[in-house]
C-alpha cells in the first residue's frame, strides 16, 4: 500500500509543575497518498501536539512518524528543516504573513529558502495566488488584505514548494462563513490534485466533507473513520 503518512505508536509525555502529563498515548494510523484527514477533538485533546510531531517540529516521547516511508525525526536539524521545507506545506491558524512582504513575496519565501531561482519562484507564486483567487491582490501587503484573503495567501505559501502533504492547523477558525467556504473549497481542489491534506479543526464542516475523520480525546484516538 502507498502511504504518505504512517504514525506508529506515537506517545508524547511532558512534565507540568512536576506532574507527568500524557499528551498523546500510543497513536497509530496510516494515511494513503492523496487522502485527506480531519483530526477533530476538544481543546486539550492533543491535536496540535500530534500535528507538531507529524511535521517534525516536535519530537515524540516514543514511537515514530514516517512520511513517504522516511522517518521524519531522523537526522539533524538541517535535514529535518529541509524535509519540512520540501515535503510539507503548513497552514497556520494565525496565518503569520510577514508584513514587510507583499502577498507574492510571502508566497515566494519557502521557495527562496529552497533555493528556487527568484524568477521561477515569482512565476510560481503568481500561479498559486491565481489558484487561490488572489490574482489582483498579489502585490498587496498583508495589512491591505482581508482575513480570508490572508488565509488564502497562507495556503498559497503552503503550496509553494509543491508539497505532497499539507498540514493545516484550524485554517478556518478565524474566518467568517463566506471565507470559510472559500477556503474549504480551495483545500478540496488541492486535494483533488493529489495532495494529501491533514486538517486539525473544531469545524464540523470538515468532518462532513473529508473522507477520513479521526477524533482525539485526552490524547487517545476516540474513533477513526477511514
Amino acid at each position: 500500500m502507498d502511504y504518505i503518512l504512517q504514525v506508529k505508536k506515537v506517545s508524547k509525555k511532558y512534565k507540568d509543575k512536576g506532574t507527568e502529563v500524557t499528551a498523546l498515548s500510543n497513536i497509530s494510523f496510516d494515511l494513503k497518498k492523496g487522502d485527506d484527514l480531519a483530526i477533530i477533538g476538544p481543546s486539550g485533546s492533543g491535536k496540535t501536539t500530534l500535528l507538531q510531531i507529524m511535521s517534525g517540529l516536535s519530537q515524540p516521547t516514543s514511537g515514530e512518524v514516517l512520511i513517504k516511508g522516511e522517518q521524519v525525526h531522523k537526522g539533524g536539524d538541517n535535514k529535518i528543516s529541509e524535509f519540512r521545507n520540501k515535503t510539507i506545506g503548513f497552514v497556520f491558524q494565525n496565518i503569520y504573513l510577514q508584513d514587510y512582504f507583499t502577498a507574492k513575496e510571502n508566497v515566494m519565501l519557502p521557495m527562496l529558502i529552497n533555493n528556487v531561482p527568484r524568477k521561477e519562484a515569482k512565476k510560481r507564486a503568481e500561479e498559486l495566488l491565481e489558484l487561490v483567487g488572489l490574482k489582483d491582490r498579489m502585490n498587496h501587503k498583508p495589512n491591505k488584505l482581508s482575513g480570508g484573503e490572508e488565509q488564502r495567501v497562507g495556503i498559497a505559501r503552503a503550496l509553494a514548494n509543491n508539497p505532497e502533504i499539507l498540514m493545516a492547523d484550524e485554517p478556518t477558525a478565524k474566518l467568517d462563513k463566506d471565507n470559510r467556504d472559500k477556503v474549504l473549497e480551495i483545500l478540496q481542489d488541492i486535494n483533488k490534485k493529489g495532495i494529501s491534506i491533514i486538517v486539525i479543526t473544531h469545524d464540523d464542516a470538515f468532518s462532513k466533507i473529508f473522507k477520513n475523520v479521526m477524533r482525539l480525546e485526552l490524547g487517545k484516538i476516540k474513533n477513526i473513520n477511514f
Partner: protein
Amino acid sequence: MRILSLLQINAFKLRQHKVKAMFLILPVSILMVLTIVVSSQVANFKSAADESIFGTINNQATLINLSKTVDFTANRGPQQQSFNSENQFTGSDIDKITAISNVTSASINSQVPVTNVKTTDLFADKTYNISNINEIDKYSASLYTQEDFTYTEGQAIPIILNANTFMEQTENWNGQTSIAVTFNRGTRPNTRSTGTSAPNQDPLSGTNSPIKTQAIAYDKSTLIGKTFTVTVGGLSAIQDYTITQASGTLTFTKLTADEINTKLATEKTDISKYWDYDKLNTPQTYTFKVVGLIESQGDNKTYIPADFADVVVNKYVQNQLSARNTTDIPTTDLNSTYRGITYDGTQLTSTSNGFGGFGGRGGRGGFGGGANMPRPGENQTSTASYNIPGLVISLSADGQETVEGVSTDADVYKNSVKTGTSISLKINSVYDRSQVVKDLNTAGYAYQDINNLDVFNNLKNTLSSISTGLTISFTILSIAVIIFAMSKFVSDSRKEIGIFRAIGMKKIHIIIMFTTQALLYTAIGFIIGGGLGIILNQASASFMNSWFDSLIMKTIKQTYNVVNAVDTSIFTRLSWQTIEYYSIALLVITLVISLIPALRASSISPVEAIKGE
C-alpha cells in the same frame, strides 16, 4: 537559502519598520558622530597643544633671560637707576655662564648708547620717547617675537616695544608761571596695560605739578605689525621751566620766552664752539616695524636687533664726528660741560643717567637722561652742561677715568666689551633647563624659574589618556548598543523566527539573517553618522579655535610672551586614524556581538510559531 535573499528580507524589513530600525541606526549614528567629532577634536587639540603649548615650551624653555635685580620700590624709580658697574653684567659673567654645561650661547642685552629716540607716528598725536633701548640677538628675541629679528638694510627694522614705557609728559600750568608742590616720595607709575591704560602719575607729577606723566593708551593687536618712523639723536628741546627744592617743596617755575631764547642762544654759542650746531642737531631717521610687545611688569627694556645696534651707534657717532670743527675741546670741558658716552678702551659708560633715558628731554641744564628732578641739595642753577649726541669721550684705561679726549672711532660701540642689566642664554634642550637653573644659582646668579614643565607634561599625559579613554568608551558603548538593539529585534521577532523555521529555514540562515541585519543597520548608522560627523566637525572648528585661543590666553600666555601660533584650520582636521580604528572595530563588534542574539534567535523552537493558535 541564498545570502542575497536573506539580505533582501532585511532590506524589506527595514523598509517596513523604519522606526524600529532606528533602535540600532540612531545610536550607531550618534556614536559615529561623537567618535568623529570628539576624537578628531581631541586629536586636533593634541596637535594644537603640541604645536602651540608644547612647541612653545620646547622653544621658549630653552631660553632664559637673566636680569640684574631692579628695585622698583626705590624712590628714584628704575629710570634713574645709576649705571654703576655692580648693576651690570660684563664679559666675565658671559664666561661664567657659558661655562655651565648645556648652555649653548649667552649674550648681554647691552643698552644701546643713543639718546633722543622718539616717534610721532606710532601713537596718534603723541610723541613717544623710546627709552631703555637694548640690543638682543635673534635667538633670545624669540622670547618676545616669532618674527625674524635680524636687521636687513633697506627694510623696516624689527623692534620689540615695551608697554611699560608707553608714557608721555605734558605740561599744564593752569595759567600760572610758578607752582609749588609738596614733594612726596612717589612710587613708580603702574603702566601695565591690558589694552588701554588709565592715566598714571609719577613722582614728579603730583596732583598740582604742572608736569604730568601719562600712560599712552594702546591696542596690542593694531600695534603689532605697525611700521613707524623713529628719529635718533639731535639735540633735546630746551626745558622751558626750572625746578627748585626747599624743605620738601618743589617749585616749578615757567621760563619766559625771553629766558628760553637766551638759554637757546647760549646753548647754540657754547656748542658751536666745537660743532656745526645744525648738523649736530640733525637726527637720523629710521623706519621700524613692531614685531613684539612686552607687557609684563618688571621689565622696561625695548629691544632692537644686535646687528642694527652697531649700525645705529656708528651713524650716531659718525654724525657727531662729521659735525666737529677742528678746534680742540679742553679736556676739562669734556664730561663736564660737554657730556656724552665715555670709553675706557674696554667698556662704554654714560655720563648721563642712562643712554636713552626715560624722558628724552633730559640731558640739559646739568641733569641726565632721567626725569628732571634735582637731587637733594642741588638746584638747577648749576653751570649749563650739554649732552652731545654721539660724543665719545676717551678715558684712561688705568681705572682712574682721566679724560683724555674725544674718541674718533665710529665703531667704538661695536668694538667695546658690552655690558648690560640682562643676559639672554640658550640651553641645549628643554630637559636640561632645571639643571642649568640650578647651576646658575650655584654660580651666584639668583634665578627663580617660573617654568613648570611638570604641569605641561601632566597635561600632555592627560590628553593622551582622554583620547584612549574616549576610544575605549565608544567601543564599549557600541557593544552595548548592538547587544541591546539586536536582542530587542530578536525578541520582537520570535513569531517570525518560528514561522521561518516551520517552513524550513535552517538555523544557520537565521543566524546570517540577524547578523546581516545588524551589519545593514550599523552600516546605515555608520554612513549617516559619518556624514553628519564630518559636517559637525567642520562646524565645531570655529568654536574650538576660539576656545583654544582663550585657553592659550589663560594659560601659556601668562608664562611666555611668544606662543607658537597654530594653523587656523587645525580644528577642521579629521582624525582618520581614529575613524579607521573605529570603523574596523565597529565592523568586528557588529559581526561578533550580533552573533550572540543571532544564536539565541536560531535556537528558538519553531513550535513557538504555532503555540497559542
